[in-house]
């Protein structure tokens, strides 16, 4: 993969312009992100890392349209989405973004297949093709024989693969992962990272993941180190 600096602006899928996020905690004001600007290009594999409280999660939430910046603009495919209404943001999250969480966030007592199909509930995908799409996603993550198992019947690594299948079902442009290996043993964690690499290299998917683990962060093609709400350096 080529580095971001070599890409031209036409490939920019996501751009943050002068993003500041402050939280009011009582009488104090805490700045989580301080005038951050960032461009993510189509097909990049980006890690965001930094110490605890550095603002990496806040950055991830703003990129994932789960949180609004206090000031600044977020451009997705060149379109400013900072001022969109909640239901419009929900639609973008549904179609354009795929989330993978540290805690997996699968619905308990619900089969793997139904967990994978969950985003389709909120999409325009016709009902008659949903089941087949879910099965194909489970095949992709190697869990086709676990379609009817509930999360409690799966290992941590398997649960995270179900979560990845769920993130992929709507064929999103960007996969966002927040500490995706944080709750996994090293072997399962490595498998998940390998899977992300495959998605990036074979399918050209844009992947952004947050980790506090520097070694893991280095596996990405581009690493953004953040500290005290500012981008310290990019590698």
């Amino acid at each position, binding site marked *: 993969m080529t580095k971001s600096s070599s890409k031209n602006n036409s490939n920019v899928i996501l751009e943050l312009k002068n993003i500041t996020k402050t939280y009011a905690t009582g009488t104090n004001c805490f700045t989580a992100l301080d005038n951050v600007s960032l461009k993510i290009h189509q097909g990049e594999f980006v890690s965001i890392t930094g110490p605890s409280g550095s603002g990496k999660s806040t950055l991830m*939430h703003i990129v*994932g349209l*789960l*949180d609004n910046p206090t000031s600044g603009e977020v451009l997705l495919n060149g379109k400013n989405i900072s001022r969109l209404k*909640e*239901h419009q943001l*929900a*639609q973008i*999250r*549904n*179609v354009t973004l795929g*989330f993978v*969480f540290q*805690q997996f*966030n699968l*619905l308990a*007592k*619900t089969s793997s297949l139904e967990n994978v199909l*969950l*985003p389709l*509930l*909120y*999409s*325009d995908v016709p*009902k008659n093709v949903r089941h087949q799409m879910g099965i194909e996603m489970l095949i992709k993550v190697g869990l086709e024989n676990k379609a009817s198992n509930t999360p409690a019947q799966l290992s941590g690594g398997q649960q995270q693969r179900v979560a990845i299948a*769920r993130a992929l079902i*709507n064929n999103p442009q960007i996969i966002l992962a927040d500490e995706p290996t944080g709750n996994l043993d090293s072997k399962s964690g490595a498998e998940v990272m390998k899977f992300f690499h495959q998605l990036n290299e074979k399918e050209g998917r844009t992947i952004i993941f947050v980790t506090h683990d520097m070694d893991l962060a280095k596996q990405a093609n581009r690493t953004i180190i953040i500290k005290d709400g500012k981008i310290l350096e990019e590698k």
Partner: protein
Amino acid sequence: MLKPSFSDLLRSSFRSILKNKSRTILTSLGIIIGVTSVILLTSIGNGLKNYVTQQFDALGANSIFISPGKIFNDNGGFSQSSMTTAMTTSFTQKDFNLLNRKLKNTIIMPVNAAYADIKSSYAIKKTTEIDGSTEEYGKSNNVVPSDGNGHWFTNEENDKKTPVVVLGYKIAQTLFPKSTAIGKKVIIKGKTLKVIGVVDQKGASMGGPSVDDAVYAPFSVVSDLAGNDNINTFVVKAPNKDLIASTKKEITKVMLEKYDSDAFSVFDSSQLLSSINSIISVLTIALTGIAAISLVVGGVGIMNIMLVSVTERTREIGLRKAIGAYPRAILIQFLIEAVILSCFGGLVGVILGSLGTVAINSFFPAKITISSILLAFGVSSAVGIIFGVAPARKASKLSPIEALRYE
């Protein structure tokens, strides 16, 4: 277009509810109790109305009653002072003659009563009301024995004071358990009377006087038994239904010649029926209203559990929002869950209420109606919507970030 589709939302809500079966049943219990009581009470009210209507139908159409005392107040309800007046005064033979003279094309039947023990060779029936009247009374009140069960007394028997009685079905069974009563003798106040007929069985009563327990004798015979020839009531048969109103006016005019307007009442069965029915309606509405309070309590129970559910499922709500659920989709989902809980309660309540009505009907008049079912079910669904809104709104307004972070 609604996303998710209504069927998807319904399925998803059902699944969430079925994950906690015992909680679902306990949550719905308030609604179940409320709907069951509402249905049972309205059924009893309807049953009573039906029963009263049937009883009045049995009194015969076109009948007008003249009673001592003011029975109705100006609003169509019963007058408070009526009962004492009605029980202490009565009409006389002169009134009968006056009415007979003045009213044309009507049949006037005087009714009196005596209270005494009735003895047969087998049994004794303590303090029984013996109603006295004329030949026409039997037909007018639909109490003429059918073929094979003897006959009703004639005016000739009345004129001659022939000591005869007609017994109700049940009292005949009591006095003559082993054989037919017809032709047998009964002794009332030391006088021997011959049973000339037994009225056909009329069915269960609610504890009031029933035709099955009645004893009838010619007016003159009852006068002798009572020791006076007072007349308790006149039953006047109007020529046809359309003439009831004008006949009543005529009677009132005649009676006012002799009595104050407060001293007597002229009414027909429909008037009495509507008064009784209005009392039953008020009672039914009042009792149903009390029962409906439990529906509100049930609604609060549902709201409580839905709020607990929203808290328990905060992370799920956060996840759904992260993967594309817009606030209204979350709101509708939780609202549907609340409505399913209350409708489930409503449905079980309707079933229990219906079964209860059938059970009650075996010993007390009760009749279920579609309108009471629809009302109870509709109110329970409305309770679900009303009490489901607050938790559903809370869920829909959760911030996805905070919801995902919730432990």
